[in-house]
């Protein structure tokens, strides 16, 4: 049992990190009142940007390359999310459809550019983050081997973002305004809060974080960008967001749950006790679990009230 936990938990943390940061991105967007179903596409473009940056910089930045790649990934996500903000906020488009367009656009343009720039639809990177043991902390009994051994540093960056976000949302005036825009934009507007600007900020942050999530996927466990990068992680993040009730600490819990579920289905081949379980059960587990959870929480799930509605000054 202990052996299994020491192999599952560090891996689960690895899978949780990008999921968590993408879900956190979704949180900013939805809290500002814009549904963001385009997380998958934003994640994908971040992954692409990180991969292409790493390959094309050819080691010019040395050890900083991998960190810079993450920054590039986040900026790429932010750039693409601008169009979602433009459509959803300024043009009052249907936010779900706009998000769908973002997903389709991302999946196509990245492969297009990969072929154009590298001649191939797959980009493999040579430099990436490597698993390390955190000095001192990894020597602590029990939590040392579980949380601080064979981990990627990016995982802690993600946790740091969660903490910052909690503070930002609940303890600062920015957070108060952002949440007001998602709950009742008319109220915010009448109080002199610029709803349009807050929603742009919400969506852009979501693009930044989702792009970063894509970058983390490539720069940690995946190491290859291809069509398969679009494997539904962004949609799972959306489920984690709903599951976590649109709260930073909530999505931490739900992302960990999904992270563990994914880990179990991925390592089932090498774990003797799981080898005999038909793979259909393990593979579909995260999705079926999401559906069951959605049904169970259906009555109590309370998202931001105004999420999904374009803000129309004339309407009351």
């Amino acid at each position, binding site marked *: 049992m202990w052996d299994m936990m020491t192999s599952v938990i560090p891996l689960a943390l690895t899978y949780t990190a990008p999921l968590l940061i993408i879900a956190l991105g979704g949180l900013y967007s939805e809290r500002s009142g814009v549904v963001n179903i385009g997380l998958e596409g934003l994640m994908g473009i971040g992954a692409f940007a990180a991969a292409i940056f790493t390959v094309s910089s050819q080691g010019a930045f040395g050890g900083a390359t991998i960190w810079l790649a993450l920054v590039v990934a986040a900026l790429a996500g932010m750039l693409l999310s601008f169009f979602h903000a433009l*459509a959803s906020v300024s*043009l009052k488009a249907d936010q779900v*459809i706009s998000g769908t367009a*973002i997903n389709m656009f991302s999946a*196509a*343009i990245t492969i*297009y550019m990969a072929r154009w720039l590298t001649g191939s639809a797959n980009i493999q990177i040579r430099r990436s983050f490597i698993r390390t043991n955190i000095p001192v902390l990894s020597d602590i009994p029990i939590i040392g081997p579980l949380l601080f051994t064979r981990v990627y540093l990016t995982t802690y960056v993600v946790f740091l973002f969660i903490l910052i976000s909690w503070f930002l949302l609940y303890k600062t005036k920015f957070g108060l305004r952002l949440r007001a825009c998602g709950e009742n934009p008319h109220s915010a507007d009448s109080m002199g809060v610029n709803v349009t600007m807050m929603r742009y900020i919400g969506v852009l942050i979501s693009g930044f974080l989702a792009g970063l999530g894509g970058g983390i996927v490539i720069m940690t466990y995946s190491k290859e960008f291809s069509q398969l990068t679009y494997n539904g992680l962004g949609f799972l993040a959306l489920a984690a967001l709903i599951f976590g009730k649109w709260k930073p600490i909530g999505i931490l819990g739900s992302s960990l749950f999904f992270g563990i579920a994914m880990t179990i289905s991925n390592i089932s081949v090498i774990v003797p006790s799981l080898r005999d379980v038909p793979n*259909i059960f393990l593979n*579909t587990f995260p999705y079926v679990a999401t559906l069951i959870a959605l049904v169970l929480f259906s009555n109590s799930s309370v998202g931001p009230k105004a999420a999904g509605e374009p803000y129309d000054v004339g309407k009351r």
Partner: protein
Amino acid sequence: MAKLKSPIAKNSRQDKLIPFLSVILGFAVGALIMLVSGFNSFAAYTRLLEGAGLFGNVRRLGGTLLNMTPLILTGLSVAFGMRTGLFNIGASGQMLMGGFGAVAVGILFELPKVIHLPLAVVTALILGALWGMVPGILKSKFNVHEVVVTIMMNWIAVWTVYYFVPLYIRGAFDTESATIRSTASLRTEWLSDLFNGSPVNLGLFIAIAAAIAVWWILEKTTFGYELKAVGLNKDAAKYAGIHVDRNIIFSMMISGALAGLAGATFYLGFTNNIKIGELPMLGFDGIAVALLGMNTPLGVVLSAFLFGFMNAGKGFMQAATGVPNELVQVIMAVIIFFSAATMLIRRWMNHLSKRKEKTQKNLEKGGAQ
């Protein structure tokens, strides 16, 4: 606020222009992208049209019709959902399950064609409907948003096929099924001969028939009246004694059935077997088809033709000009974006017509002086 609505109502004729403008803008953005990446966009578009057989090559035209067939059906699937107020983003999964069922029947049974083929097609229809029923039930009974559920159902479909194909209908490799028996195939000799050997097949007629059926249901029946009422105003539908829950489930089932039929035409008419681990993107393209077609059956057929020829011609374009064929998907995404952001186009059109009015007024003034 009723007074503010009037200018929009006045523009309903303009609304019909929006799809055309979206398409033009989509191609314009595509050209821009090619320009930036150093390709000759004129040559690429010419090759795209040529590859689709629009310059008279009958065999390639058959390819366009072939590509158009499942798009009509997935487009109808999405459009039907939209008319009832549901966004079915799971047409891909429903199509995959339908196709899986059809292929399984096509391999496992040995029957005369008159029974075998209809059986396979109906199996696809039923599996698609069942796959659509789940989000319908979760939406109506538990108020879970259908977008999230259909996305989950897509992945569940992928893994279901991943599990069952190697187990029961394995082909030469673990990654794909055996080939269906010819008695379950939608291909016919006369049609292939007509198009000079193109794999265009009977699925096209299924698709056209489905479009007519959808039009008939929506426009001519009380069932369609109920469905549209639910889509436009759920509360008013409830007030009128319409069973909203039941209609949502029915609507998702019909939507799923249409996607399932798309699976039948694709796997029984084109690939003849099924691969594992792949979600057919045609389901997502159906969203573009439906939006561009303004969720009407005729519009869906027309936009399916547009996307059909783009899909048919893209391989030829890539081979002849080196432009990566994903360009076509990029253009589709841009078209969806503009169809969603109708306000942008409307503003442009208003701006243009105002300018026109102004110049006209100026002309009249000039005339009076």
